[in-house]
């Protein structure tokens, strides 16, 4: 795992440099990191054998919080906004989590979907407060006290995104290997046994759920800042589907997977849209099916297979 962390860091820095040298790449890169974090959130749940088609909701919530604060309290610093946005998502996650952890598999996914759809429609409906489907503008805040122009601001965000992503990968990976994390994974294989060990599967899942909400929230607030706009689309079920898509693409075996998946996804989509505009969805769909068919464990699954093989030889 040490090795993978080093690799991730190197990759992150490399991306950072390319991003800073090619301005047009900044946004797609920032987006990929956002999607990576969100997908990692889904990945946490996947480890517990659960799937959510509503987690875009948490990205949406923090995004709106950031947008609202940025325009109503101009003084607030970007860093603070990110934290507050994430906290908001975590808070909602704690609340919603308390309900949904009673459900499993498709019902778990369905309930999340339904709740997110409620949020989505409400955001679209209460035009006066939420700006309706046009959403809210995010006023560009100071970042760590600096007034920044768009380009500098985006560079700064990119740096921030890379750092946060690495931190998140490291932290979440630790969690996966910790007692709580391993026990979470045990929910997937045998919840009954957990109960018969005197462990509350609900509590474990709740922790995982809050973590995943937090990750999506972090992604959402970064996303909002980089876009300068938040819309209900951020919380539509198709967006949640994308998160799941990416999580599966990358695989939930290792925290880094989500980010690999996100990068692949973002650029696949970008070039699919640029080259064969009008068929990008199809290309993505085919990719998804092919990946599931050949790499059910996702791209990191591939890596771990390799490692096993090597160990076998040695």
């Amino acid at each position: 795992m040490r090795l993978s962390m080093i690799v991730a860091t190197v990759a992150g820095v490399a991306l950072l440099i390319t991003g800073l040298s090619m301005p047009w790449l900044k946004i797609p890169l920032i987006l990929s990191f956002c999607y990576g974090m969100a997908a990692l959130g889904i990945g946490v749940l996947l480890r517990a054998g659960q799937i959510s088609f509503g987690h875009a909701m948490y990205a949406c919530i923090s995004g709106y919080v950031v947008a609202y604060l940025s325009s109503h309290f101009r003084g607030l610093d970007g860093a603070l906004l990110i934290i507050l946005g994430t906290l908001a998502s975590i808070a909602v996650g704690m609340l919603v989590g308390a309900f949904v952890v009673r459900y499993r598999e498709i019902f778990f996914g369905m309930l999340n979907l339904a709740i997110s759809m409620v949020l989505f429609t409400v955001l679209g409906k209460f035009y006066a407060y939420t700006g309706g489907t046009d959403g809210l503008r995010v006023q560009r805040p100071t970042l760590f006290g600096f007034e920044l122009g768009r380009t500098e601001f985006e560079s700064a965000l990119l740096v921030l995104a890379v750092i946060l992503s690495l931190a998140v990968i490291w932290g979440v990976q630790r969690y996966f290997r910790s007692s709580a994390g391993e026990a979470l994974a045990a929910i997937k294989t045998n919840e009954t046994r957990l109960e018969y060990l005197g462990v509350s599967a609900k509590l474990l899942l709740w922790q995982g759920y809050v973590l995943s909400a937090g990750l999506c929230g972090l992604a959402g607030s970064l996303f909002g800042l980089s876009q300068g706009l938040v819309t209900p689309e951020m919380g539509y079920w198709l967006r949640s589907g994308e998160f799941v898509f990416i999580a599966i693409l990358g695989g939930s075996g290792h925290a880094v997977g989500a980010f690999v998946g996100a990068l692949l996804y973002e650029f696949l989509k970008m070039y699919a849209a640029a080259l064969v505009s009008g068929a990008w969805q199809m290309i993505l769909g085919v990719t998804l099916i092919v990946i599931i068919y050949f790499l059910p464990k996702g791209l990191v699954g591939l890596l771990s297979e390799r490692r096993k093989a090597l160990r076998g030889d040695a």
Partner: protein
Amino acid sequence: MSKDILILALLDGVSYAGLLFLVALGLTFIFGVVRILNVAHGSLYACGGYAAATLGLWLGGGSLGVSLAALIGSSIVVGIVLGTLLMLLLRRFQDRDPILQLLVTFGAFMIFEDLQRMIWGTQPYFVADVVNQMGTSEVLGVIYMNYQLLFVPGAALGVYALLQWFLNRTLMGRQIVAVTHDREVATAMGINAKRIAYLTFVVGAMLGALGGALASPTTSLVPGIGADMIVLSFAVVATAGLGQISGALITALLIGLSRSFCVYLYPELEVVMPYVIMVLVLLVRPQGLFTVAQARRI
């Protein structure tokens, strides 16, 4: 006035519920038998609609019988073609994690979305012959299309009755029921699960397509109608309890009515209604309204 509104809202709700039920039915049916939540069901709805409209245009009006035949025929064809495709696709993923199976259908959905646009373009499609041929009738000074008021709900009930008959009275149907209850035992009893699965997909797909076909005379077919329909029918299915056919009927009514009442009383809430209902129901009855929970054997 209020009494009138009650009646009118009821009528509106019923006509909408009919459509909703037909779409949800296919979804819940497929899930009940093969335990796959088919996201591509939305595409079936869309394709059914487009196919019906195209056929209608091609026939260019004609008698009521012809137009009805067009609606039903097209949905049967779409059902067989797409149902087979889906089944062939999912067969490759038979023994995989249900989550992965669900995602495969999600991928299929994305593919169908673009296929639709390639085949039928982006201009709204619409053929209204049937509706005009069926005429209108007046209730409390409000004019209704017989098509929406009588035919669609009627068709929904008809299909429901037909399906019930098929499941309870025919050998094939009984086998399907057996599989839904316990696939191990059923297969042990020598039921050909493969054949059942195939049949299920085709029937389910037909129902989805029929929903689209019946919607096509009153609604415009545009890119992306599938995406909204699928979440809505998810709501119905999950609220009713996955695999619950009669449950879906009642839930569709519930949602249809709540929606139409909202339009009269508090329009802003109209769209949120189905999901609010779903959340509330699932909070009270985790398995959905009409499912009986069964314990896991250890």
